[in-house]
């Protein structure tokens, strides 16, 4: 793959010139390096989705069912009736263009169909043609067009060039949300078994096994034990977490990226240290181990299917509430969907911190608290001893995850943690952070290997902002609270802004956390030498 990836100079020379032909007359180019591989039949079958078969994007024949057009139009009609958002967003766009240059994929590619307004027009044109009077009467003249195989392929191409980050929806005067368009557009494609491999494979594994990499329970336990062994070496403290333990007070769920891959595992070590230090009565679950909901990138039904296991497990184990780890779209689902899809969870209680006694009233219905909220409350009550100088070798900036920023609004909590966990913190430019944050370019299931060019283009805007603080403040660390970020940002940084390390917030917190009975700390959670500070001279 790496061989095919153009150089940063080549990609940075973005051509914003528009094609000569009108967008409707410009067929979508399915280009290697941009598109993702097609989903495999067995993964589609695993969750009983329609039209399972093996097919290839490169082939002309996508092995669609005979009546594919009918299926799509029927599906579209159903969704228009079921989702006010879709109907409204199909009807009211005035094409003012405010969204156009807000999309990281447009910024990084210059492809006009990556302007949110045109991404929506791809679907809207078919809506007009089949569901509006003007479209039926006047056709192409009023932006309507027939649904052809060409159009379908165009949908596939561009609904998988959107990370559902909602940056456009922040700037839209009517709040038109391209994430809704993309989510429902992909849902329509999935009616024909058109998914991408990276998503479909993860969905199947989450469903049958319990996490997106298909790690079996015994391996899951080994992974956690392995992290605990490392922690014992670093801190001298033996941590013994419990798995699938009934009667625990709290169920902890995070994205599986945190317990198997570098650098997510270092964040996971931070969680383990924190929970141990606070003597929390909590358990992991190997059945509902995956917080990240890959179903959300497939359809609402599959999102619900995968999410259901979390409440089911909370009920089985008899916990009082759930703490969720650092993950972006997992939290969009936890915050905006979980209660509605699989709740209300009457068996859970309003979360109360056993350490500080704080009642998380704002999570009374879903019973789920974000770990950053939980930890911020601990620090605010002076329950943690932190030595930020242990992170003095790091000059840190913070990347807000799109979903947490624009689908929840948790902006201050992680910053509060960072301010307590490290001494050198610098913000990126205002228009690239908080609610205006740029996507990593690999969200919403696009974190595959074969679409590296697309990912580098998508992350160009974010990387630019990092480069800015690297030059201005000699920043060397990019902190984030999302598992996809932790997986996607390291290659992105290596490509655009070398020598930036990516960490989770709880990794930095773990470094700074002074634990009772710890040995003099000489190593950080990555096993690298700590800078010499007041508490760690040993």
């Amino acid at each position, binding site marked *: 793959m790496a061989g095919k990836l153009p150089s940063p100079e080549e990609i940075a020379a973005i051509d914003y010139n528009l094609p000569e032909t009108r967008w409707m007359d410009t067929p979508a180019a399915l280009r290697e390096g941009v598109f993702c591989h097609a989903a495999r039949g067995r993964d589609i079958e695993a969750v009983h989705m329609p039209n399972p078969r093996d097919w290839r994007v490169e082939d002309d024949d996508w092995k669609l069912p005979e009546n594919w057009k009918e299926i799509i139009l029927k599906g579209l009609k159903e969704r228009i009736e079921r989702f006010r958002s879709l109907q409204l967003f199909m009807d009211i766009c*005035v094409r003012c263009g405010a969204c156009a240059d807000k999309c990281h994929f447009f910024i990084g590619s210059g492809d006009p169909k990556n302007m949110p307004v045109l991404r929506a027009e791809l679907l809207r044109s078919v809506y007009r043609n089949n569901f509006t009077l003007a479209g039926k009467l006047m056709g192409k003249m009023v932006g309507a067009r027939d649904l052809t195989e060409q159009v379908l392929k165009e949908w596939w191409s561009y609904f998988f060039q959107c990370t559902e980050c909602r940056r456009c929806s*922040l700037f*839209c005067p*009517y709040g038109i949300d391209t994430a809704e368009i993309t989510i429902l557009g992909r849902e329509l494609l999935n009616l024909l078994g058109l998914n991408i491999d990276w998503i479909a494979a993860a969905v199947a594994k989450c469903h049958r096994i319990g996490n997106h990499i298909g790690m079996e329970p015994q391996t899951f336990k080994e992974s956690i034990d392995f992290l605990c062994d490392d922690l014992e070496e670093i801190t001298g403290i033996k941590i013994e977490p419990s798995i699938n333990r009934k009667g625990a007070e709290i169920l902890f769920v995070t994205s599986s990226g945190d317990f198997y891959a570098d650098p997510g595992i270092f964040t996971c070590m931070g969680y383990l240290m924190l929970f141990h230090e606070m003597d929390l009565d909590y358990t992991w679950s190997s059945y509902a181990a995956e917080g990240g909901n890959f179903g959300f990138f497939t359809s609402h039904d599959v999102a619900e299917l995968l999410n259901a296991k979390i409440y089911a497990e909370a009920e089985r184990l008899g916990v009082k509430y759930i703490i969720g780890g650092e993950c972006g779209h997992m939290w969009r689902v936890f915050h905006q969907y979980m209660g509605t899809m699989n709740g209300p969870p009457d068996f859970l209680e309003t979360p109360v911190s056993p350490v500080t006694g704080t009642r998380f009233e704002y*999570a009374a219905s879903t019973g789920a608290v974000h770990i950053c909220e939980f930890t911020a409350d601990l620090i605010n009550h002076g329950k943690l001893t932190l030595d930020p100088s242990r992170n003095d070798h790091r000059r840190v900036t913070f990347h807000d995850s799109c979903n947490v920023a624009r689908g929840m*609004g948790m902006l201050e909590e992680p910053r509060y943690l960072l301010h307590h966990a490290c001494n050198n913190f610098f913000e990126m430019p205002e228009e690239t952070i908080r*609610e205006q944050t740029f996507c990593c370019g690999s969200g919403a299931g696009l974190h595959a290997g074969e679409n590296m060019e697309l990912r580098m283009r998508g992350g160009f805007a974010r990387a630019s902002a990092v480069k800015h603080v690297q030059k201005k403040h000699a920043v060397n660390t990019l902190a984030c609270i999302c598992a996809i970020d932790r997986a996607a940002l390291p290659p992105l940084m290596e490509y655009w802004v070398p020598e930036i390390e990516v960490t989770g917030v709880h990794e930095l917190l773990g470094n700074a956390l002074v634990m009772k009975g710890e040995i003099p700390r000489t190593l950080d959670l990555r096993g690298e030498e700590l800078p010499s500070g007041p508490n760690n001279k040993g």
Partner: protein
Amino acid sequence: MGLPYALIAVILLILISWTGVQGLGLTSLFGIVIPYLAAILFFTGFIHRLIKWSTAPNPFRIPTTGGQQKSLGWIQHSWMDNPFTTFQAILRISSEIFLFRSLFRNLSLRPQTDLQPVSYASAKWLWLFAIAFHYALLTTLFRHLHFFTNPVPAPVRLVQNLDGWFEIGIPQVMMSGLLLLAAVTLLFARRIFIPKLRYISLLNDYFPLFLIMAIATTGVLMRYVDGIDTTSVKELAMGFITFRPSVPDGIGVLFFIHFFLVCSLAAYFPFSKLMHAAGLFFSPTRNLTNNNRASFHRNPWNKPADYHKYADWENQFREKMVEAGIPLDEDPASPKDKE
């Protein structure tokens, strides 16, 4: 691309009304029949659309959050951009309706520099054009109420006087009309001069702009150039809304053109993007509260998921779990073990 067609369509509308009234003398058609038809289309179309929107549910509570959530008490909550209560959500959507708050955020991509390849500059001009246009339109519409009321209510007279405070000569200059014309021209100009916008623009975008331009122009011409018998027009207007329609003598053809264009706009309105005016009120990313975790949001068509149950999962991995010392629901020696 739709530009020429949109222009031709508006010219045709002008020609139709001009020939109809001037050439064929169809004043009743253009003064009574068409206006009633347009009104019927406008109201039924509008209501039909509102019913369609309101009967489609909001299955999920999906506000786009533009600021800090309400969480821990000591963290400042950004209640306007991240509303937690219905009242806060009403304030948020009102700020969109009255102040175009989201558009006020607008930025434009700045050329690349070495230090930072991607950056933005503030771009409030779109907001400025838009807000000027909409308030000018509102004021103009409101002023026109003096044709439909007898006696003219005080607020209408007040707006008229405020609008015309800038008295230069006779007749009094109404700022709103001129501002409307200027703003609609600017909105049109950005559509043709910004390549990205020209690329995305459709007939559907140009047609209402031309129509409003033509309406404003005929209005301005009547007021400042051609003159108009306002008494007769008021008689027609009063007859129209009291359902005792009549077409008095002495109304010039320019008025009929103006009136026909307004009728066209009204009839077109509910079937077009102009419905954004009503649609904004319904926008789920703007009018919903962000209190999903605090209170349950019901999805009317939700059905329980047939997920992979724990018991089945345990059977799948029983031996491996026993070996790893992971607790089980079922006793390892239970009959199910045989599977």
